[in-house]
């Protein structure tokens, strides 16, 4: 038997094995290739799913931002209330309006394959300003916080979570400190020996403008109405718009004579709830010299004499009341004033008018001036009512006291006004020296010019019901009554800390910037964004104009209020603001120019400038408040009125309605 050679046996089947080996390698490579392809394909799907999930997540963030914005537009929404009432805390869920996620879920329906989950929280709640710094006004309701939006989108197995943090700010649309004041003047025109200050109103004895003084040479008063409320409660004055006439020097305001309804200021001396401004306030001296304490009989008539005092005001003429009964007849007022005294009265009437008395707190070194006339009166029939004025008790220096009996002797008889006849007198018994003794005693009863009485004393007069001097009722005895100067404390709302504590002279608006929630470059951008062609203003917050002036159109109508902070001069003319809105126009560095072609319903603020009149023939007609560095005494020669808008008062409980919540348009943090 022949066997196969050894070499052949070794070669047998090699090709098959090679082919099988090659096939195996190819199969492995092919499988690897396919696996990689499949893997890439899966990754391609994942890329899409991931992008889609991220888009869902970002949709959730956008939806939450829009929903929060919509919710905080409504001051009564659960979201707004939760933000306003939020205490300092870590992270707390933010309540959102019911059903707020429905639109999102309709757009991206939740399923096993895709969907989005959104959560909104509030963190880092804190005060907007340093709570220890009360010198620029602090509103405890003004806060900062951060809204945290966590949105998770998913698509198939891919999940993406986006976390976005946006700052929010809770801002009171009224400006701090100055909004508490009807009138706030940091540097008023002072009154001293050389300056008339605000005493430029020439009026007759009734309080009406002096017809002998041309209108062009006269300055009519600006009357300030601090509120509509009366003096019903002890704290009423706190609720009113206060008045601040600051500066380092004194401001002395001459009270206007008479009871004329617009300008007369007799009412300063009355309980205005039983107001009688037809005649000056008068009272009998209840501790006269002995002569006046018993009746006397002259010419067969028993007569009782008394010393009566009457509180008057200033005036330039007495032509309209040439009446012997008039205690101011014959220009007697001048007897009490030296020749250099300015006889004009104040162009600032801080307590309203006789028809609408409006007492308030007057801060600063503010005084009023008025004369008190004294006279000897006689009562013939014993009915307690004077029948005639025997003689005015002129204010004379000691060296002239002896002259009174010789050069100014008493008349022998005076008209008896009650009977129409005359009253006989005994001159010997009626000499000044007989009645009073010496000048020192006389000086306690003679007429006097009260030239520096704290202005707030008038509030006590108005409660005194005729008592002189009045009891201190209107102000807390513990206070630095009644002229606290410029360092004051403005209490906050009930249960809250003080709104302000410091020197009002230092309030210059430099802290107002922090309240702005929108900043525009200039007037052009402001008008593009907030004004329409029909002069309707839609602010909705505190808007700052970074540079330049702002000239508002005549007949501005406020649809959505707020405040405008402008670096330059603001010019305004006639503004209508509805009852549910407020508007503050604040020039941070310059002036406010008001033409007063009609009423301006706004707060005008220029704490480094002044209020200028664009049309001096027009009356100032302002409903809101006025806060300036300077208010020139003759800036408004036609006078006018400032009526406080109590809704601006940041210390009233109702002021919480003026808070608005704002969310920034940029994120503090965006994290995927």
């Amino acid at each position, binding site marked *: 038997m022949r066997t196969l050679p050894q070499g052949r046996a070794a070669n047998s089947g090699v090709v098959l094995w090679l082919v099988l080996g090659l096939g195996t390698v190819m*199969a492995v490579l*092919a499988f690897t*290739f396919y696996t990689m392809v499949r893997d890439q394909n899966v990754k391609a799907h994942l890329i899409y799913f991931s992008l*889609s999930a991220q888009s869902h997540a970002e949709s959730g963030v956008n939806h939450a931002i*829009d929903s929060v914005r919509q919710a905080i537009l409504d001051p009564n929404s659960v979201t707004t209330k939760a933000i306003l009432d939020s205490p300092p805390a870590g992270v707390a869920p933010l309540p959102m309006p019911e059903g707020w996620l429905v639109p999102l879920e309709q757009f991206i329906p939740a399923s096993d394959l895709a969907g989005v989950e959104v959560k909104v929280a509030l963190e880092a709640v804190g005060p907007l300003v340093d709570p220890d710094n009360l010198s620029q006004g602090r509103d405890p309701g003004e806060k900062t916080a951060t809204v945290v939006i966590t949105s998770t989108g998913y698509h198939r197995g891919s999940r993406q979570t986006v976390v976005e943090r946006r700052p929010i700010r809770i801002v009171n649309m009224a400006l701090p400190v100055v909004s508490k004041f009807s009138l706030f003047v940091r540097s008023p025109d002072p009154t001293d020996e050389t300056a008339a200050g605000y005493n430029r109103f020439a009026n007759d004895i009734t309080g009406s403008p002096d017809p002998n003084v041309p209108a062009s040479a006269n300055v009519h008063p600006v009357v300030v109405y601090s509120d509509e409320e009366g003096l019903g409660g002890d704290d009423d004055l706190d609720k009113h718009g206060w008045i601040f006439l600051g500066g380092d020097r004194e401001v002395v305001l001459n009270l206007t004579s008479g009871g004329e309804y617009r300008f007369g200021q007799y009412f300063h001396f009355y309980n205005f709830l039983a107001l009688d401004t037809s005649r000056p306030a008068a009272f009998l001296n209840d501790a006269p010299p002995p002569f006046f304490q018993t009746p006397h009989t002259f010419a067969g008539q028993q007569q009782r004499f008394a010393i009566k005092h009457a509180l008057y005001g200033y005036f330039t003429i007495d032509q309209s009341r040439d009446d012997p009964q008039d205690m101011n007849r014959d220009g007697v007022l001048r007897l009490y004033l030296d020749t250099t005294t300015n006889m004009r009265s104040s162009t600032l009437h801080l307590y309203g008018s006789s028809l609408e008395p409006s007492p308030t707190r007057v801060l600063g070194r503010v005084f009023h001036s008025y004369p008190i006339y004294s006279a000897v009166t006689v009562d013939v029939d014993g009915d307690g009512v004077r029948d005639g004025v025997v003689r005015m008790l002129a204010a004379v220096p000691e060296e002239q006291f002896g002259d009174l009996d010789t050069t100014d002797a008493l008349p022998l008889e005076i008209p008896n006004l009650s009977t129409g006849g005359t009253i006989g007198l005994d001159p010997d018994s009626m000499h000044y020296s007989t009645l009073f003794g010496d000048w020192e005693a006389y000086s306690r009863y003679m007429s006097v010019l009260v030239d520096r009485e704290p202005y707030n004393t008038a509030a006590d007069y108005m409660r005194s019901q005729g008592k002189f001097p009045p009891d201190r009722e209107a102000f807390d005895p513990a206070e630095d009554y009644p002229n606290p100067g410029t360092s004051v404390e403005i209490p906050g709302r009930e249960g809250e800390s003080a709104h302000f504590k410091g020197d009002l002279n230092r309030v210059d608006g430099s802290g107002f910037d922090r309240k702005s929630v929108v900043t525009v470059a200039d007037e052009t951008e402001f008008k593009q*964004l907030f004004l329409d062609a029909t002069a309707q203003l839609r602010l909705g917050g505190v808007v700052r104009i970074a540079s330049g002036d702002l000239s508002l159109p005549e007949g501005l109508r406020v649809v959505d209020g707020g405040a405008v902070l402008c670096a330059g001069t603001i010019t305004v003319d006639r503004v209508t603001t509805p009852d549910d809105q407020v508007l503050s126009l604040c020039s941070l560095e310059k002036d406010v120019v008001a033409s007063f072609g009609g009423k301006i319903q706004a707060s005008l603020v220029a704490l480094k400038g002044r209020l200028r009149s664009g049309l001096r023939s027009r009356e100032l007609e302002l409903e809101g408040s006025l806060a300036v560095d300077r208010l020139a005494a003759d800036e408004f020669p036609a006078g006018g009125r400032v009526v406080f808008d109590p809704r601006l008062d940041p210390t009233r409980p109702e002021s919480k309605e003026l808070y608005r919540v704002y969310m920034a348009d940029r994120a503090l943090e965006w994290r995927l």
Partner: protein
Amino acid sequence: MRRLDTGMTFVEILMAVVVLSVLLVPLVTLMTTGFRDTQATIDEVQAANLAGELVEQLDALPFSALPPEGPVSGVTLSTQSGSLADGAETVPGSGFRFHLSALPPTFSRELSVRRVGSTRREAVVTIRWTLNGFPRALTMKRVLVKDAILPTM
């Protein structure tokens, strides 16, 4: 004769060819599928990027520049309309333009925008293409909301 003994028999070669053929059929199929899937992967990634590109641009646009402007809902813009082309204004006169990558052959791009209230739009971007004669598509959704008035705070 000895030299002949060292070679391969015809049968061996025939068997090898048969075996190789049997092996190559699935391998070629696998390779073909792989190449096709690779193209699908490329297409899908491209489509996802095209969709993401448009969605992100929409999100970055000012609200007033979002198509459509005005009380219109459910408007669809297509590649062919020219409005959704690279360089086209998002809204005529807005000054804002699309910056879109060129579409590969067989690709098209659609945008559907629905107006929801005055501060919200819902955008759906759809990318369509064909692969081996079969239509393919993917969509991406985004809620778009009105931006704040101005940079603030």
